[in-house]
């Protein structure tokens, strides 16, 4: 046994040369690829994440559109930024449930016994969300244009608006990934995030002008980061109704700065938290 043993040990496969950066990029790409394959192999995930925003665009446009009077381009143009924001916020929850599922399936344990970068697993996870959210945005934009949404800004401003929405969703994916690693089952993430995200998206300026809300809700809405995101997108898409009243709160006055600060804070807090959490979790 001794002789065969030495040959086995000698033939243990060695890694190809590389430094920490190239290994991280390689690991990040492999895990992103894995998550993209899931989108391709389980088309229902993409299908539902596309159908839901389309349904919201149509429901809100035709059910509320008649009742809510918005000057200028009308309710549809007012609504779109709100729907975009709501969709990317809800889209990020997928990182949470997928992370919880991977943990439950033992895949995270497998990854953690490999000499790979743990952070890369999280990057691959949040990248997967970014792809789904980008596709959702494209489909929603197409639907919006069909029902009368118009962009009244320069292409550069338009792209900045899309970029800001995706950046916010990306930062939120890290929050959700952290929650996904902190709960015992994927279902908890779905239920719990609904409890938080519904008020967060609805008590905002996403679907109705917030100046009409009762005072406590109006104050919440003015400080709500989702409102800042919606207001930013509205401004960058040129969809702010003429004569719209903007709240006095700083975030309402400076929506783009608020979003950028919010994204920076979320990433600065949750990226390290996620990486630290990942280094000790096991099924």
């Amino acid at each position, binding site marked *: 046994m001794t002789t065969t043993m030495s040959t086995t040990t000698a033939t243990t496969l060695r890694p190809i040369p590389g430094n920490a950066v190239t*290994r991280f990029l390689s690991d990040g790409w492999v895990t992103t690829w894995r998550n993209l394959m899931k989108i391709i192999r389980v088309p229902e995930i993409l299908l539902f994440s596309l159908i839901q925003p389309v349904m919201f665009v149509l429901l809100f446009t035709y059910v509320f559109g008649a009742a809510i009077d918005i000057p200028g381009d009308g309710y549809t143009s007012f609504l779109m930024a709100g729907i975009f924001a709501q969709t990317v916020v809800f889209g990020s929850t997928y990182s949470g449930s997928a992370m919880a599922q991977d943990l439950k399936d033992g895949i995270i344990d*497998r990854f953690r016994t490999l000499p790979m970068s743990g952070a890369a697993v999280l990057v691959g996870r949040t990248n997967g969300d970014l792809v789904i959210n980008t596709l959702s945005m494209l489909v929603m934009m197409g639907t919006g244009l069909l029902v009368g949404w118009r962009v009244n800004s320069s292409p550069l401003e338009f792209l900045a608006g899309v970029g800001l929405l995706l950046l916010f969703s990306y930062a939120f994916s890290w929050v959700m990934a952290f929650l996904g690693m902190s709960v015992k089952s994927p279902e908890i993430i779905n239920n719990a995030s609904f409890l938080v995200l519904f008020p967060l998206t609805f008590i905002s300026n996403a679907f109705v002008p917030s100046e009409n809300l009762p005072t406590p809700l109006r104050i919440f809405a003015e400080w709500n980061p989702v409102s800042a995101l919606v207001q930013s997108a509205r401004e960058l898409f040129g969809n702010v109704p003429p004569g719209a009243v903007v709240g006095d709160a700083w975030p309402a006055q400076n929506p783009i700065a608020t979003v950028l600060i919010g994204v920076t804070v979320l990433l600065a807090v949750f990226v390290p938290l996620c990486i630290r959490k990942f280094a000790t979790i096991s099924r």
Partner: protein
Amino acid sequence: MAFIEATDLVKTYSPKGSPQVRALDGLNLEVQQGSVTALLGPNGAGKTTTVKVLTTLIQPDSGSAFINGVDVVAEPQAIRRMIGASGQYAAVDQNLTGFENLVMVGKLYHLGTRVARQRATELIELFDLVESQNRTVKGYSGGMRRRIDLAGALVIRPPVLFLDEPTTGLDPRSRLGLWEVIEQLVADGTTVLLTTQYLEEADRLADSISVIDNGRVIAKGTADELKASIGGLRVAVTLVDESQSEAARTLLTRFGSGETAVLNGRTLVVPVQDGPHALAAIVSAAAAEGIGLHDAGMRRPTLDDVFLQLTGRTAEADETETEGAA
């Protein structure tokens, strides 16, 4: 120094609302290079926790562990470059094909695409998965999943392999197939640490067995040594009437070579020297004394018997405890 050496490992958990659990309570373990060592014990004994510490998944509260002289706690990445791990829950991506799963693992070991694909092809052949290599794992049977998971642990031809209950939940045929693969690896010189609840599995595969209970090793030796230590054949009887269990215990002890154990009230087990003779004597004595027997027979020692002997209680395989405590 042994190839794998764990000293005084302690790991405690504090589940919400229940008292602290000492999953590992001063566990010591030595595994010689090129040998197969089995950790044998019931669910919750600390088998999986031991493997998790050695595969860098969790850190012990105290104690030390070295593999080939490398500190498991201080240098986890160095450990990960020399181990392969496969568990009772096949940790494979359901939405990837068998081939893709193995290539992914190879790439994450940083072998490069070419070598990763080459190695995946070899392993697919070794594990007899050629026909299903391009189907997603979702459609695989339990045995096939376990095989692809084990293949994933072998991608770098690791000098050390950890197998956590490799055949739990498999049908007998798949179990036999997996045993053959493991035996082949061992013949090639891989050092293996496996955990199991089955004495038969430890018996067939392991050079050395460590029996663990409550987070510590309570006995170790070869399969033959352990069996010899707990005696040979058993006679087990099941009573018609539970109220006769005291009388039956006295009777069994008279013909047995050791203490009689009462399992769940109606079933009694006693080690015996001359099996057929003792069985015949017990059956006729029971008839003479009016003790009604529902069932009587001989059997080989089981894990339960080892435990009974070593701890004075049965090794309850309580499924509900697997998740947290193991």
